[in-house]
Structure formats: structure tokens, C-alpha cells
């Protein structure tokens, strides 16, 4: 089942999973900025 999921995500391509990765990176950047401004 999980292999099927990975295959489906891979077949959908970067246009699909790249969006989630990019969102994650923005959240990490925000948290980093928040920590820095409150130090």
C-alpha cells in the first residue's frame, strides 16, 4: 500500500510534491526568523 502511495506521488511529479516541500521550507524559515527576533 505505502509503496503504491510513493509510486503515485512520484508519478504525479515535482509539480505535486514540490509544493508541499516548498511550504515546509517557508514554515521553517518563519520559525527561524521568529526565534531570532525574540532573542
Amino acid at each position, binding site marked *: 500500500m505505502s509503496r503504491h502511495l510513493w509510486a503515485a506521488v512520484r508519478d504525479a511529479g515535482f509539480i505535486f510534491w514540490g*509544493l*508541499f516541500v516548498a511550504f515546509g521550507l*517557508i514554515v521553517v*524559515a518563519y520559525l527561524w526568523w521568529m526565534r531570532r527576533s525574540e532573542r
Partner: protein
Amino acid sequence: MSVRLVVFGVYFALVFFIGWISLKSTDDPSDYWIAGGRLGWLLGGATMAATHTSAGTFIGTIGVIHTVGWSFGWLILSVPISYFLMAAVLAPRFTRVRKLTLPDFIEARYDSAAARSVAAVIILIAVTVYIQAQIVAGGLVANIVFGITPTQGMVLFTAILLAYTVVGGMIAVVYTDLLQLAIMTLGLLVAVPLTVRHLDGFANLLDYARVMRPLTFSWEGMPGPLLFTMGLAFLLGGVATPEKVVRLYAMRDMRTIRRGVLFTLLIVTGMILSVAVVALGSIVLFPSLPTGDLAMPMVARAILPPVVGALMLAAITSAMMSTVDSLLIVAGSALSEDIYHRLIDPGASHARRLIVARLGILVVGTVPLLMTLSGIAEGELVQFIVLLFTALMASSFFMPVVAGLYWRRANKQGAIAAMLGGITTAMTWKLYGPGTVDPVLPGFLVSGLLLLVVSLMSPPPPDSAVTPYFMPS
């Protein structure tokens, strides 16, 4: 039908209850417009998120993804980036002097009542456009829920909204926003897994969508320049739309704002991503719809169990109402504080200003309904009306607000020219320009250029107005 009526009955009863309670805690204009500036991160973030999430999200986004595929989903990224910029770039300086409205800020920074009036008039025009989109969607949902005609639905929807906003002001709006956000989140938390299960799991959902419509996961669904410039509209508009920035004044301090905006960013992006997944489901289940805007109501009615379906429709209604109530507050404040109090009757008492505000909200809420009933903007996809509003706001306010906080030399002549030039360019482009580039790009560029050139050609602004925003914190 009866389950839907019960769910909606309970929802509307709660909304009215909140409006009535809020009336009692509203003593002066600051309570009415910015909830006294006392909000913590949860309420502040929730009201920002609920305001952001409109019919544009629940009906519009899903409608466009249904029509052009996943590439439109990348526009979602402009949302977290715009909130990041709002918290990191705009808020620290914008909130140094606490005002009541965006035009109020424009007057203080540029030391000009004329600039304030221009801002107020632009807000009134743009808000009318946006409210119209929500009313159209409201009619669509009421048609499905109550079986009444879309026209009757639009009238009912507007009447309920006006009732609690006029009575309760910002305090009512903030608490109903929290309730509405909870309903939206709950609706999606239940609807997404059910949609995925209905299609035999997430892997199959992706496979089916790809097979049913090969363009779903390609960049060809939408022209690149259009996608990019639409993203720009959401990015710039997200930073400087009046109904959002005024929420920075409603929150207690910068620490609260950083947390509140993070909360907004997570909730809003999470919700839009969930909606995008439902959109994939709608591609598989209803490949050919007369308009993409029907995708979400169809999913709610056809594949969700009655209670969840009703909850989802209540969520869509919440999304629309939480946005329109906030816009009504912004428009009402533009009329009462920025135009009436500033220009017509400077000596008006608190009580009188609140009466004018309430009357103003009634008028501003009724005009879009009348415009819609007379057939203006008929047949536009909801998302594209929302996008036009965002482009108009970004073209008029981004430069005067953001550049005004970082460039001391920006003055009232520059700001007025930037606002008028920006909105005129964007409107003209929308009507006559090529459809492959969103109006925000020319609007924003003209606005920036005018701010720069006109400011440099006229005397610098008085130090007393500028200094508060440039003091080291």
C-alpha cells in the same frame, strides 16, 4: 434537507448570539473598529485566517483547480510568503503608532487628509467588488441548502450578515470569525478523509486524477506568465489589504503578532492544501461541470453523509460570511471615520460616529447585492472576482504603505499619485489589456514609479509625521 436545516439553524443562532453579546462590550469606536486593540495571538490569528478564507478558497480555488489542474495550486505559496512579509517587514513599523483604519495610517504617515480620503474611496470601490463575489457564492449555496432560488439566497445571506455586523462591530466579527474558522477546519478535517476514502485511498486518487485528465499534473493548464503574475497579486495584496492590516492594530503587541500571523499562515495554507486535495477528487468524480464553482457544493452534496455535507456547506457559508463581515467593517470605517468624521463633521461624538458607521455598513452591504441582482459581473468565476479585488488593493496600497515605512522621502503627493495611478492602471488593464498578464503587474509598477518620481519632484514630508515610524524600536 431537514438535517441541513438543523445544522444551519444552530449555526445562525450562534452567530446572532455573538452579535448580541458583542453589542454590550462595545463602548467606543476603538472597540467597534479594532476590538479595543486587546486581542491575543489565538483570536488575532483566527480572525485573520477566517477573513482570508473566503468563498475564494472553498468555491474559487477548488473551481479553478477543477478547471486548469494542479499548477494553480502553486499560487498557494504566495499566501505563506505574504504573511511572512507582513509579520517581518510591515508589522514592526506599521504598528508603532496604533490607528483605527488603513486610511487613518495613510493620513498620519503622509500628514494629509486628502490622501486619507483617496484611500477611503478606493477601499469603498474595491470592497464592493469583493463582496459581490461572496454574495454570488452565497446564493449558490443557499440554493443547494434550502432549495430557494439563488436570488432569494443572496438576499437572505446579505440580511443575516448585515444584522450581526451592524450590531456588534469588530468584537462580533472577531468572535464569529473564531466560530466560523472552527467550522471550516472541522468541515475539512472530516470532508478530506471521506473524499479520499470514497476514491479508494490517496494513491488511487492521484492515479485516477492523472488518468482522467492528463493535464492535471502538468504546467500546461495555465500560461506561465499569468500564473506568476496572479501569484504576485496574492503576494502583494496579501501584505497590504486593509481588512488584514487593520488586524495588526487589533492585536496586543509585536510578540502577539508574530505568533498570531504564524497561526494564520499554518491554518490558511493547510486549509487551501486540503481544498486542493478535494479539488482532485472533484476532477475524478465530476469531470464535466458547467462551471468549476459548482465542484465543492457537488462534493458536499453527493459524496458526504448528510450531517458532514451540511457541515461542509455551513463551512463554505462561514468562509464567505467571515470575509464579508470584515470587509463591511473596513468599508464602514472608511465611511464613518475617514469620510464623515474627518471631512464632514470633525466634532461628531462617539455615539454619532457609531450611528453613521452602522448606517454606512447597511448601505455598503446593500449596494453589491443590488449590483448583483441587476446582472453586473454575472457568470465570472468567483476566484477571478476575488483576484481582481486583490490586484486592485495591491496596486493601490502596497507601495504607499510598505515604501512609506522604509523610505522617509515618500510624501503625500507621491502617495496620492501612487494610489490613483495604481488602481486606474489595474482597472484599465483588466478591461482592455491582454488577459495573459494579471492587472497587478502593471498596476504595481506604475504605482511604485509614481510614488518615486512624484515624491522626488515635490517637497519632503514634515519630520513630525514621519519620525514616529522610523524611530529605532
